[in-house]
């Protein structure tokens, strides 16, 4: 009896290898966070005739709401802050899991300057910040900022 039991138990253990964790180091996270904030106006939005920068006010962390500022500038008059031509929306999305997060709050501070707060990533992982420009329901342009939480 014990022999049959032992054969089965060994077969199962042979199939299941021990997990080999490959942990993300804290240092990598900090560097990644900084790297995801583009230099001023490094991203062009052709349809909006603008460039933009994303500046974190407080760096997103697990279980803590963050906020960032979106600055839009004219593509033709360097340094002139201007609103986008179309309606701005911001969505948090986790592509690997196929779901988003709770809605962010978007507030215009001044011409070309928008505060995005209540930025809450509901779980650690690889996320996307979808910065979109819409005319009614029609999506005109979208840029994706990748970030690892």
């Amino acid at each position, binding site marked *: *009896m*014990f022999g*049959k*039991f032992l054969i*089965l*138990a060994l077969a*199962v253990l042979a199939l*299941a*290898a*021990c*997990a*080999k*964790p*490959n*942990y*993300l180091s804290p240092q990598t996270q900090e560097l990644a966070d900084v790297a995801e904030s583009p230099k001023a106006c490094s991203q062009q939005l052709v349809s909006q005739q603008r460039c933009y920068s994303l500046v974190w006010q407080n760096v997103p*962390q*697990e*279980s*803590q*709401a963050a906020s960032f500022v979106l600055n839009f500038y004219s593509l033709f008059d360097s340094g002139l802050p201007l609103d986008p031509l179309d309606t701005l929306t911001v*969505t*948090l*999305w986790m*592509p*690997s*899991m*196929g*779901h*988003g*997060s*709770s*809605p962010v709050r978007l507030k215009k501070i001044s011409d070309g300057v928008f505060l995005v707060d*209540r930025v*809450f990533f*509901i*779980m*650690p*992982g*690889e996320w996307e910040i*979808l910065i979109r420009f819409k005319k009614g329901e029609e*999506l005109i342009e979208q840029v994706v900022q990748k970030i*690892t939480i």
Partner: protein
Amino acid sequence: MSVASLITTDDKAQFAASLSQSRVDTDVFSNGVWQKRANGDVTQVLKIETALIFADRYQYGFAVPVQTRRREGTESATSSGFGDVSAQLGYEFLPDWDYNPWRPKGVGFVTLVLPTGKSIYESDQSGGSDTQGRGFLALGLGAAFSKFWGRYDASTALEIHKSFDKSVNSSQLQGVVRPGLGESLSFSAGVSFKDLRMGASLAYVNEEAISVRGSVNSDGSPQQYTTASLSGGYALSDGWAAGLVYSDQTLFGSPTNATLSKSVLASVTKKWAR
């Protein structure tokens, strides 16, 4: 997909009530990188499961979970509600009437999971701590095999399920979520000393990627994880038994795109012999 509410012994009916507490330990990204959770995400589940033999070799059963989820940190929140209710129909296609030394008893089953728990797609709480279920209607097909050799026992179950598309119209998404197929395979073994049984099990789960089409488009990544468990059970009188299970999802396999937890479960079970 749980197959716990399935009779694989010689009993005609069984009832189980369990209370478990699990804490998220680690998140594994789609590229296989692990990250320890800094803040607590604790789920307590009270589950009622029952199964009944009818028409000799047929059986049906269901499982109803009620759960409370508590998320810690600056955005802490607690919520309670029903999880996903499941129902099962089984047939003993491989009886063990002559107690063959090797041939196991085999029970085939069909499982239906109803998306009764609020899912991440319907979440209206910051941080999604009000999610209690996976959110998909699912239909599964599988088989469980069990064998006793004196004081030793072993069982295995394999199952494949199809989760169906879900239309979502929320602030995060207007579109369709397509979950795809999933499979699970489990092995368990135990040894009994009079009324005490000690056991161990491994359960492997694979879910196809969840793709999304609509206001957001993404292809998703497959999810894999393995749950290892150690269990102890003590047979009381009149078919009653008490059990304790410790489970850990960080020990075996190559998890990917998964949230790994450690949990403790206490249960009472009542069985009625044929």
